[in-house]
């Protein structure tokens, strides 16, 4: 990743806990998703960046400024550089938001603007609340807000100070499912609008796909892979990544048309039809997700531009995956399929063979961007 703002290499171990190793973590402009299963160390990593935990050793720098320094440091030995949390200029949104229960919405959002004159602080609070659609809630207490409103207040409180880096820990996890799905698209718009370097923690692959530009995958306390979101999903660097990313093909697509819950998208030259009743009408781009076991292969080569979601492909590679075979296909884009060794033998599947591909429209999952 070029133009990284934040670079970090450090390790941190809690007594009795697993060791968390961040090796060459980079956060550039745009939204970087820190993806991994629960307990893989994502939150610890984020808290180290925010300055709320002290790494055992390593280095954290942001745009040339040393936030944490001196390798081999343990328990704050002299000579270490440690920039305290209050001086890092980071906007931090924890998973449960941690809104100050004794302060109003305006009090919460304005908390970090103490250095400004009162009038300017108040104006900025109002401006931020308006931007997030929270106007009119200034005098409410956090306990009187819905989950979605609390989430936006926490975001407002973090961004009102115009931080250098935004850190979000599972920003949607505390919400109920309908609210979470609704806010997923909204959150991406808000974060894009801010244009801040953002590191967002999630364990939900659809959230990662919906929100991220870049992606960092963590498993077993270590960074396994980093890169653009679609690249990580399509080319997992190792088994651990393949396992948490799932056996899915993920493709960037543009929306061609949306009619009665049937969405047509274009992946390169190939058009795909998906069933997506909740797809937002204004979305122009989407990620297409196709599970490998939903891809049907047939021996006959289908004519080009035949019926929907049927096309011909060339076999790129065939690999064993447990009792099944994982087949990589080139059909204008790279597609993954799973099938039994018997079926592969019947079709005489081997690299460079031509096959027909079928995918039912309900099996094509769209994530609006």
């Amino acid at each position: 990743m070029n133009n990284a703002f934040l670079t970090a290499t450090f390790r941190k171990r809690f007594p009795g806990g697993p060791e968390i190793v961040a090796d060459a973590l980079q956060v550039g402009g745009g939204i970087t998703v820190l993806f991994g299963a629960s307990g893989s160390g994502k939150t610890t990593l984020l808290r180290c960046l925010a300055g709320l935990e002290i790494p055992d050793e390593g280095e954290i720098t942001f745009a040339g400024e040393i936030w944490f320094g001196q390798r081999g440091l343990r328990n704050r030995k002299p000579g270490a550089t440690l920039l305290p949390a209050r001086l890092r200029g980071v906007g931090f949104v924890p998973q449960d938001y941690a809104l100050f229960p004794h302060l109003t919405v305006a009090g919460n959002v304005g908390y970090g603007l103490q250095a400004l004159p009162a009038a300017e602080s108040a104006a900025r609070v109002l401006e931020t609340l308006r931007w997030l659609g929270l106007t009119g809630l200034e005098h409410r207490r956090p306990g009187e807000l819905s989950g979605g409103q609390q989430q936006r207040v926490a975001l407002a409180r973090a961004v009102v100070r115009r931080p250098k880096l935004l850190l979000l820990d599972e920003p949607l996890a505390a919400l109920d499912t309908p609210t979470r799905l609704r806010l997923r698209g909204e959150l991406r718009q808000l974060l894009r609008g801010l244009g801040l370097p953002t590191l967002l923690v999630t364990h939900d692959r659809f959230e990662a796909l919906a929100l991220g530009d870049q992606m960092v995958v963590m498993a077993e306390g270590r960074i396994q892979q980093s890169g653009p979101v679609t690249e990580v999903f399509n080319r997992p660097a190792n088994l651990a990544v393949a396992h948490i990313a799932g056996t899915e093909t993920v493709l960037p697509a543009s929306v061609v048309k949306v009619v009665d819950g049937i969405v047509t998208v274009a992946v390169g030259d190939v058009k795909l039809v998906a069933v997506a009743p909740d797809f937002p009408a204004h979305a122009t781009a989407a990620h297409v997700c196709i599970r490998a076991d939903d891809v049907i292969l047939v021996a006959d080569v289908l004519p080009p531009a035949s019926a929907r979601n049927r096309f011909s492909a060339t076999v790129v590679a065939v690999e064993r995956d447990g009792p099944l075979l994982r087949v990589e296909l080139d059909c204008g884009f790279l597609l993954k399929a799973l099938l039994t060794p018997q079926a592969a033998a019947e079709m005489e599947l081997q690299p460079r063979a031509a096959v027909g591909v079928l995918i039912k429209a309900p099996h094509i999952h769209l994530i609006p961007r």
Partner: protein
Amino acid sequence: MSGAEWQLVGFSLRMALASLLLVFPVGLALAWCLARKHWPGKALVETVVSLPLVLPPVVTGLVLLQLFGRRGPVGSWLHHTFNLEVVFTWRAVVVALATMSLPLFVRAARTAFEEVDVKFEQLARTLGAGEWRVFFTITLPLAKRGVLAGTLLAFARALGEFGATIMVAGNLPGRTTTLPVAIYQAVENGEDAHAWLLAGVSAIIAFAAVFVSEQLLRRSK
């Protein structure tokens, strides 16, 4: 009530409030250090602060008498540096009341601080707040109810203190005599009606203190 009785009640109230003025800042700092920090000697300080709760008050008074007497380490220093006499003056009353009520306040405030989730303090730090601001805008407001309850306990203890006071301040009417000491004295002298009057006044003050703190608690909700 006679003028002397009013004077006695006023004096006792003033002494209890003065001891609170000592207990409040010292107790808050101590409670915060015990709740939030790890430091060598913490267990020792914890024990020493709690000691007046379990020691007979007369023993605490005896220790204070030694410390603050003119030949005691604190007393001689105060005498030479500020020309202050403590023992058998109103200052000794305040010292005795503060010593006896400090552990109650520290225990209540410490529990209240421990119940404040550190996540709020941490978040305040990410928003640029220094330690003093975190304490006064986050920790203390969130611990308000417990601190208030501790203040009431300390005040009640100060009003009722007998053993330590009489050891270190004696019973000099109009100068060091507090309500409990005066009640004891009245019973000693066979003035039962006088004793009951003072007991009634004590009950009214206690009732008022509980009432005021309940009101404050309700308003802080």
